């Protein structure tokens, strides 16, 4: 579904992505893992066309995304930090997004809005919201249009345990609906029951792309947390 070929991106002297080639297929649930600054968010932003790669290309359903924009109708994106226009109310943000994506929506999925209790504070302005509530708005927006691909950048960071659980259940239910899910997170225990594939990035390079099962077998560990810790140690002290 998504194929990235030799994607490179530098910010000044820093090489954020170094020849990354990846294939993501429908029905997979992929975790992007790596230390801070390893290029996870940059890669996600490249997929969304928010960051333009220096060279290499990315295809979505066999179409190059470079000069395309319509493909984003199939993607729900939850950014790392929810940044929204300050003086809009929650309801206005939702209405605006519905208005803009009207043609592409195949039935709205407003489960998360009610599950998070956002429907009770719809008239609050975005600038008055706490970081966690903004995250909830971001998550609700990502799921709102029933997209085939969900891209979640640190979805559970900043959420309280109850909300975090609600979001995880939502992700799992979408996974069972056969959607492609891409997640980055540092909270590995959260990823354990969600993920089927692991992509490990370090200093902008793709270290490996394996199924969870394979990774566990290769490292001889039972838990994802331990397996990744094993990999990180190996990479630090080879």
């Amino acid at each position, binding site marked *: 579904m998504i194929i990235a070929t030799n994607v490179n991106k530098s*910010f000044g002297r820093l090489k954020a992505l170094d020849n990354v080639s990846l294939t993501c297929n429908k029905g997979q649930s992929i975790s992007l893992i790596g230390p801070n600054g390893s290029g996870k968010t940059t890669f996600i*932003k490249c997929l*969304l*066309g*928010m*960051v*333009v790669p220096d060279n290499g290309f990315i295809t979505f359903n066999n179409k190059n995304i470079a000069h395309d*924009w*319509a*493909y*984003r*109708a199939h*993607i729900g*994106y939850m*950014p790392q930090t929810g*940044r*929204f*226009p*300050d*003086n*809009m109310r929650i309801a206005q*943000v939702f209405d*605006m*997004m519905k*208005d*803009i*994506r009207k043609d*592409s929506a195949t039935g709205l999925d407003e489960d998360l809005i009610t599950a998070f209790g956002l429907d009770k504070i719809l008239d609050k302005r975005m600038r008055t919201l706490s970081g966690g509530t903004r995250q909830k708005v971001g998550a609700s927006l990502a799921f709102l249009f029933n997209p085939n691909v969900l891209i979640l950048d640190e979805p559970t960071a900043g959420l309280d345990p109850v909300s975090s659980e609600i979001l995880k259940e939502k992700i799992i239910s979408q996974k069972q609906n056969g959607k492609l899910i891409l997640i980055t997170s540092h909270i590995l225990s959260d990823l354990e029951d969600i993920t089927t594939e692991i992509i490990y990035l370090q200093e902008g390079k793709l270290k490996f792309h394996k199924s969870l099962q394979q990774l566990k077998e290769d490292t001889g560990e039972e838990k994802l947390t331990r397996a990744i810790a094993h990999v990180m140690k190996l990479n630090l002290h080879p």
Partner: protein
Amino acid sequence: MKKIIKYVVLDILRNRIVLAYTLFLLVISLSVFNLEDNAAKGLLSLLNIILIIVPLISIIFSTIYVYNSTEFIELLVSQPVKRTGLLLSIFTGLAVSLLLAFLVGAGLPILIYSASAAGFMMIAVGLALTLVFVSLAVLASVITRDKAKGIGVSILLWFYFSLIYDGIILFILFQFSDYPMEKVTIGFSSLNPIDLGRIMILLKLDIAAMMGYTGAVFKDFFGGFWGILYALLVMLLWVLIPVWLTVRKFNRKDL
């Protein structure tokens, strides 16, 4: 694109600065026309105020607005929206609100007190300058990532066009005063939209006779239909070139 323009215009109306700008223009125009007994004199006083204020407010407000909509832009680029369309919508939204403000604030009083050829020319110039400086503002705010720097660039641009440029021209004209510079000054005037606007209005006010031989050359060149068409075309280029550069830059920008 229409939807995004709607949201931009609504947002601008909500923050009331444009409303204050409209009232400000209205108060100034009405008081100028009421102070002078002669409408042409009033127009002349208004000319200088408009040539300073309209570009200043247009460029500063637009620059700050674009920076303040960073979140809005970030939110929308991850959605199925064309980047070019998004940028043009923001430009159009800004332009529409500021054009309306000028029409109500200065256009109405001019039409009431001095609906002459000069009055209409002044409205046209005011509208054109609004567009030019909104497009320069959008350019300045897209090429510089830092907000303070972007606003600084905008202020400098305004400063350049309203003061520094005239100084440079005067200097050149004095240095080359032994040579026939009249034709060249027409070329110079095209390089500064504010100067071009001033010339177009002055020619309609019939005080070009006081500007000596250069004034006669201007009258000869800009006075006729082709002159006005030329001025219009130059103004249009002053809008289109910055917008084109901005779109090009914005399409490759990392957000």
